[in-house]
C-alpha cells in the first residue's frame, strides 16, 4: 500500500479518544513516522544478523589472511597458496594439487546430483501438476514436502542398511545369485544420498512451474499431431525450464558444500571438499588454512549464484519455495 493511501486513511480516521492517555498518543504519533517504523521493524533483525551472522562469517575471512592469530601475526596468502600450489602447477605435478582436485570432485558430484535430481523431478511434477486428481493433489504434494522437514541426518544414514555389503540391495542380489555391488563408502553412496536429501529442492519449484502451465497448450500441441514426447520436448520442457534451473542451482550449491552425506556414505572415493574444511578445525587445528578453504567454498557458491543470476535464473524464486513453500 502506498503512502498516499496512508495519508487518506489518516484524514478520515477519527482521532483516538483522549482517555487513552497522552503517553499512548505520543507513542502512536512517534510510531507513525516511516523512519521509526523501518528502524524498529528491521533494526533488531539486522543488528542480530550483523553481530551473529556477518561477523562470524567475516571472522573466517580474517583468519584466512593471517599467519596465525588475527592481528597478532603477519598478513599472508600462504593459506591460499597451499590450496592453489603454484609450484605444483608450474612443474605439472597436478596430482599434488589434492585440495583443488577435491574441490573439483565435489563440483563434479554436485553436477551429477543436480542432473539426477532434475531427471527424477520431471515425471512426478508433471503428474502432480497436470494429471493428479484435484482432491488428492494437496495430499500428494504434502507427501513430497514432509520428508523434507525431517532430520536429513537420519534420512542419510537410513541408506547404510540399504546400500552396505550385507544390506537390503546386496542381500537381494546375492539371494538371486547375482554378484553384490559396491554401493556404500564410495562416490556412488555419496551421490545416492545427496540426490535423496536434496531432490525436494528441485521437485518443489518444478511443481510450481508445472502447476502454472496452461494444459490447453499441451492439448493444442497434441491436437496438431505432436506425440506425447514431442509435446513434452517442445511445450512442457521450455516452459518449465526456469523452475527447473532455479531448483537445480539450489541443489548444486547445497551439494557442493555437503558434509554429512559424504561423511556417512562416501568413504574415500566419495570424500568431498567440506570434509577437509571440518578436518582443519576438528583434528588438524589449523584454523587459518581451514578458514582459507572455507572462503574458497563461499566464493564458489556466490560465484555460482552470480553466474546463474546473469543467465537470468531466479534462484530467489526457488528459495521462496524451498523455504517458505516447504
Amino acid at each position, binding site marked *: 500500500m502506498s503512502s498516499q493511501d496512508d495519508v487518506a486513511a489518516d484524514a478520515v480516521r477519527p482521532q483516538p479518544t483522549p482517555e487513552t492517555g497522552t503517553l499512548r498518543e505520543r507513542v502512536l504519533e512517534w510510531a507513525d513516522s516511516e523512519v521509526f517504523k523501518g528502524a524498529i521493524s528491521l533494526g533488531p533483525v539486522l543488528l542480530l544478523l550483523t553481530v551473529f551472522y556477518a561477523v562470524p562469517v567475516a*571472522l573466517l575471512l580474517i583468519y584466512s589472511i593471517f599467519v596465525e592469530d588475527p592481528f597478532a601475526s603477519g598478513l599472508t596468502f600462504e593459506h591460499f597458496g597451499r590450496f592453489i600450489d603454484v609450484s605444483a602447477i608450474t612443474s605439472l605435478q597436478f596430482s599434488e594439487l589434492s585440495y583443488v582436485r577435491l574441490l573439483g570432485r565435489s563440483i563434479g558430484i554436485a553436477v551429477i546430483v543436480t542432473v539426477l535430481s532434475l531427471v527424477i523431478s520431471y515425471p512426478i511434477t508433471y503428474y502432480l501438476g497436470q*494429471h493428479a486428481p484435484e482432491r488428492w493433489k494437496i495430499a500428494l504434494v504434502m507427501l513430497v514436502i514432509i520428508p523434507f522437514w525431517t532430520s536429513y541426518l537420519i534420512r542419510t544414514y537410513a541408506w547404510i542398511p540399504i546400500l552396505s555389503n550385507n544390506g537390503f540391495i546386496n542381500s537381494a542380489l546375492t539371494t538371486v545369485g547375482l554378484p553384490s555391488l559396491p554401493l556404500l563408502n564410495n562416490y556412488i553412496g555419496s551421490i545416492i544420498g545427496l540426490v535423496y536429501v536434496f531432490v525436494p529442492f528441485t521437485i518443489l519449484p518444478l511443481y510450481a512451474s508445472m502447476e502454472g502451465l496452461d494444459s490447453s497448450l499441451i492439448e493444442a500441441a497434441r491436437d496438431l499431431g505432436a506425440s506425447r514426447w514431442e509435446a513434452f520436448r517442445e511445450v512442457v520442457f521450455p516452459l518449465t525450464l526456469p523452475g527447473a534451473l532455479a531448483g537445480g542451482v539450489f541443489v548444486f550449491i547445497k551439494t557442493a558444500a555437503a558434509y554429512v552425506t559424504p561423511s556417512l556414505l562416501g568413504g574415500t572415493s566419495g570424500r568431498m571438499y567440506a570434509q577437509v574444511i571440518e578436518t582443519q578445525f576438528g583434528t588438524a587445528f589449523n584454523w587459518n588454512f581451514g578458514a582459507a578453504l572455507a572462503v574458497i567454498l563461499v566464493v564458489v557458491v556466490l560465484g555460482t549464484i552470480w553466474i546463474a543470476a546473469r543467465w537470468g535464473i531466479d534462484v530467489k524464486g526457488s528459495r521462496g519455495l524451498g523455504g517458505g513453500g516447504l
Partner: protein
Amino acid sequence: MSVADSIRDRVGSDSDPNDGAGSGLKLATLLTYLFLYGPILVVVLMSFDAGRYGLRWDFTTEWYASLATRSDLIGSLWLSIQIGIVVMIISTVLAVVAAFGLSRFDWPKRKGPIATYLIFVPLTLPIIIYGIGLFVFFTQLGIGRGFFPIVVGHVLYTLPFATLVVGAGVIDLDRSLEEAAMDLGADPLTTFREVTLPALMPNIVAAALFSFTLSFDEFLISFFVSGGGAVPLPVRIWGMVRADIEPEVYAISVVVLLISIVIAAMATRLRRF
C-alpha cells in the same frame, strides 16, 4: 480425435483416456514416492529388528525398551526440545517484526531490496561455513560451546524460513480489513491486535512450528558449537552412527522422525498452497 473427445477437452475434463497420465508417468511417480519414503520405512523396520542388516527380520521391541535406560539419549532429547522451544519463540517474534518491516513500509528506493537480501543470505551460504564461523566467533569471545551458542545459531538459521512464511501471509493479507477497522475508530495498535494478528495467525503458527522442527533436527551448527554438557540429540545420533555399534540408534531415530513428521504435517496444513 473424436468430437466427443474435443468436447470433453473443452469442458476441461481430466478423464480423457488418450491424453491422461500414461501408465509410465504414474509408475515413475509411484517410484519417486517409494524413493522418498523407502529409507524412512527402513529406519522403522530396523528399529524393530533384532538382528543386523540384511533380509532376515526378527521382530523385537527391545531397542525401545533399552531407550528408557539411556539417560544420555533422554537428556539430549529433552535438551533439543528446550532449544527448539526457545528458538521457536525468538525466531517467530523476530519473523513477525521483520515480515512487516520488509513488506509494509515505504523504503527509500534500493534500501528495501538490500534489507531483503540481508535477511535471506543465511539461506544461500553453506551451513557448514556458518557453523564453523560461529564456533570461531564464540571461542574468540571466550564463551566456547554450549546452550547459548546453539540457540544463537539456530535462531539465525530458522529466521529466514520463519520470515518467508509470515511474510507470505502479510503480502496476502486483505488490507481493506485493517482499513475498515481504522475507519471504525480503531487506532493502529488495536487494529494490529484485533484484526491483523488474528488474520495472520495461521502463518505465525506455521512459522513457529517450522522453526521448532528446523531447530530440533538441525545438526551441522550444533555439531560445531555444542559441547560442555549441552549435546543436542542430532549430535548424539551422529556419534552413535559413526560408532556403528548401538542398535538403539534406529529406535531413537523413529522417535525423532515421529516428532518432526507430526509437526511438519501440522505446519504444512496451516500454510496456504
